[in-house]
């Protein structure tokens, strides 16, 4: 039995839950309600204080991405060069920090090789992808793919994300640059390049995130978010366009697959009156949106998803999500007043 189910069962059985409606009617002076966000199967309470640190000692700028390593630790990448990597335990306690060389640290992906953890970091200011050990030793650095002829200068290469296959091959999304998707083998040798800027089926505007989707073991593929277009695109491993999923109104960051669901931070709502209008989005195993914490309930009209938008001003600019084994979600935010990540506890 997972910890979450155990907690649910034990708390339901407790006196507390049984009495609490009665008590809140009778004693309305203390009827504060915990925020619960999300819809259907995926609902959460919100802990804003998780991971808060002393900004003088361990500062953050943008909190770009988070992953959980093999030891269960939560690894955060920020573009603050005092401590680009901040490692927490799940309770939000600081364990260690490292990294001062990633002024444009943006993409963070965990890869495991022979039982050892490594990180792939993209830096759009260094115009590089950097592979490190989990404690920060650099394994290799990859520069812009000059040999492809698709780039005139390194400044055109601003990689935002990576994803890794079981065999060690990895893909890079150049989401702030020329919008190409690059396929490398585990040694960092370029095998393929596809995509590019444009509005065609196989092209992108802001190819911000990329994720290896092996939920269907017989037909693995690559999911790529075209954030500006509010579209999630699916490509074959050899770079051929397969299909698209429209997500109206949602500027989706990278897809994050946890079990058979896909989780997204949504940077902002497309036509919001306030610009800090982000929320989260969760798709089920059929790629149907089932929950949008902080936003409108997902509704389908003749299998078309209706436009989604922020309804409560909880998140500012969510940029990435990380889901732990208890189904709790950690949210890293961009441009949100140097705030630390938020933890959501699934209820």
């Amino acid at each position, binding site marked *: 039995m997972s910890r979450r189910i155990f907690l649910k069962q034990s708390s339901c059985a407790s006196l*507390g839950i049984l009495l609490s409606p009665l008590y809140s009617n009778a004693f309305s002076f203390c009827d*504060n309600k915990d925020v619960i966000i999300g819809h259907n199967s995926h609902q959460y*309470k919100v802990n804003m204080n998780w991971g808060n640190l002393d900004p003088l000692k361990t500062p953050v700028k943008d909190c770009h991405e988070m992953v959980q390593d093999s030891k269960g630790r939560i690894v955060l990448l920020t573009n603050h060069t005092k401590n680009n990597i901040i490692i927490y335990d799940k309770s939000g306690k600081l364990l260690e920090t490292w990294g001062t060389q990633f002024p444009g640290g943006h993409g963070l992906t965990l890869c495991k090789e022979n039982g050892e953890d490594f990180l792939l970091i993209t830096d759009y200011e260094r115009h590089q992808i950097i592979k490190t050990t989990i404690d920060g030793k650099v394994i290799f650095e990859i520069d812009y793919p000059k040999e492809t002829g698709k780039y005139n200068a390194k400044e055109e290469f601003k990689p935002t994300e990576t994803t890794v296959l079981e065999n060690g091959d990895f893909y890079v999304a150049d989401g702030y640059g020329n919008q190409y998707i690059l396929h490398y083998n585990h040694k960092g040798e370029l095998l393929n390049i596809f995509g590019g800027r444009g509005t065609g089926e196989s092209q992108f505007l802001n190819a911000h995130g990329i994720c290896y989707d092996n939920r269907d073991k017989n037909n693995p593929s690559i999911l790529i978010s075209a954030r500006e277009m509010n579209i999630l695109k699916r490509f074959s491993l050899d770079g051929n366009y397969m299909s698209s999923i429209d997500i109206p109104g949602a500027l989706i960051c990278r897809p994050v697959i946890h079990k058979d669901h896909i989780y997204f931070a949504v940077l902002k709502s497309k036509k919001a*009156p*306030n*610009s800090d209008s982000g929320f989260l989005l969760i798709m089920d195993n059929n790629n149907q949106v089932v929950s949008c914490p902080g936003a*409108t309930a997902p509704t389908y009209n003749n299998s078309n998803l209706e436009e989604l*938008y922020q*309804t*409560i001003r909880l998140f500012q600019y969510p940029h990435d999500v990380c889901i732990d084994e208890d189904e709790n979600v950690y949210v890293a935010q961009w441009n949100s007043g140097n705030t630390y990540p938020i933890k959501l506890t699934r209820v």
Partner: protein
Amino acid sequence: MMLKVMICFLAFIFFNCKLKPDSLFLQQDQIQITQPRLEATNQLIDSIAYLTASLKLEGTKIYYTTNGESPSENSNLYTSPIKVINPGTYKFKAYHPDWKESDIVEKVFYKKGIPIDSIIWHSNASDRYKGVGSLTLNNNKKGTVDFKDTQWLGFDTIAHATLQLKIESFVKSITIGYLSDPGSWIFPPAHITVKTSVDGNNFKKLSINLQSIDGISAPSLKHVDIPIGEDIKYVQVEVKNVSSIPDWHEGKGNKAWLFMDEWVLNY
């Protein structure tokens, strides 16, 4: 036994009441709901426009005013699209029993102006923000708070044009519509010069300065009215914003954008 249960119960209440304010989790009354979304069929009216307000969050009620005052729960309750006949400012606010009320959001309706026959540009809009052609400023369609909306003309610090009417007409004032979105490096005008003429040779000049901004604010649609009060055929308008982005902004020292939409000649 009964006594024990009672004690447990009271202890529970006490414990819980004490604990609640220090809950680990965020409380609902600390969080605001978003502003209602407004959509108007038309913002420059010559007959009728319809204004729709919505916020798809169960339990939300939207209230509005038409007299410029801030809405409260005593104002008009929004139930269906509003028929707008007169120019004016419509302000909306959303309320919810559990969450904090929203900020106010407003929509301004203008009277449709005198049609402009031609616009001659002396400064060019950026290729990235060149609107929908030469009459973008006078096509009776307002840009939205999204600067990527195709109704906006984006300039590199100066928008300068001569407007020509078909025939000499009485113009009460000119309304210059602009976008303020300092977070996206789009600054409001600092200085506007309006020159008017009957014959296209002799111009009468009027200049105004606008108050500068001193911090980031949410994107908003703004306008300024400049009185004319004469029979004229030509209007030359020069709008300038800050020469460089001020020190408090991340883009300090760089050029700021100037975004224009709908210049209305009122009669």
